């Protein structure tokens, strides 16, 4: 009895069926990849309604562009690239809403070479990630956006500046301030943990 088809064959069949408008294949497509995309967006966006809207947008965009999928990467990678673009749209909105005065409040922030963070040696990866998420949630939305955009999507400062219509210098200041706030919040969390 033949076993299940190899993953790439199964993926190719799924894509072909989706492109033919097969509703069952479309359902399989969503079932197989929705957790991946939802998780990806949960890492980057904090508002539940926004995550759900973006997730739907990712699948609609994927469906409409699937005919152009060349198979040069896995479908997962390709979908994550679409999700990354959608998350970037969200960051862009958050940074565009930032009042210009907020950027230039007289401080001369710039990116220092390194900020050191004291991480509990007993932390495993999951705990560490949870702590990072908790710390990010203490920051203003624009700080979270710029940190995620820069570090998780590895966007160069120039690109962030270009996409938000700001100068590279102003994004550098914003990022420096976000980093400083992150470090301060992390430290505050350490004190709370010690006090508890």
């Amino acid at each position: 009895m033949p076993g299940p088809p190899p993953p790439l064959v199964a993926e190719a069949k799924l894509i072909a069926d989706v492109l033919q408008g097969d509703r069952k294949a479309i359902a399989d497509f969503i079932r197989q990849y929705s957790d991946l995309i939802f998780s990806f967006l949960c890492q980057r966006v904090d508002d539940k309604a926004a995550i759900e809207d973006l997730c739907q947008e990712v699948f609609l965009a994927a469906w409409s562009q699937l005919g152009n999928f060349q198979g040069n990467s896995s479908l997962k990678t390709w979908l994550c690239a679409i999700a990354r673009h959608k998350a970037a749209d969200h960051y862009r909105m958050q940074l565009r809403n930032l009042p210009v005065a907020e950027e230039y409040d007289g401080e001369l922030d710039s990116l220092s070479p390194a900020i050191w963070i004291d991480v509990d040696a007993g932390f495993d990866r999951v705990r560490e990630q949870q702590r990072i998420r908790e710390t990010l949630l203490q920051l203003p939305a624009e700080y979270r956006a710029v940190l995620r955009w820069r570090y998780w999507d590895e966007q160069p400062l120039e690109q962030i500046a270009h996409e938000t219509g700001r100068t590279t210098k102003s994004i550098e200041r914003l990022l420096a301030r976000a980093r400083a706030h992150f470090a301060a919040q992390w430290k505050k969390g350490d004190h709370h943990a010690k006090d508890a």
Partner: protein
Amino acid sequence: MLKTLDSLLAAAEQESLVTSAPAALRSRIYSAVIREAQKRSPLRPLTASMQSGYTICTWENLIRRLPGGETKNHCTLCPARKLAEASDSLSIPWSGCPYREFHCT
């Protein structure tokens, strides 16, 4: 243990946790994609779907026998769709229903 902020944040993304997409969200996405697919061209006939190895639901199996029933989106008339789009915990009795699958996995 000291880590640079840069390395701490960069590594956090790579270790992303898997969060299950809510069933109601999956259902809404499915309905939206099917709507868009229908705008572009007729849906694949249900018989072709079955021949390709997929299972169709009881409701679709009944209605596909009607004139034009093969390519229509029968889910628009099905109460299970509305319920599935609104609730994350739902039990849909008939097998082969995509909305049921979203709520089971």
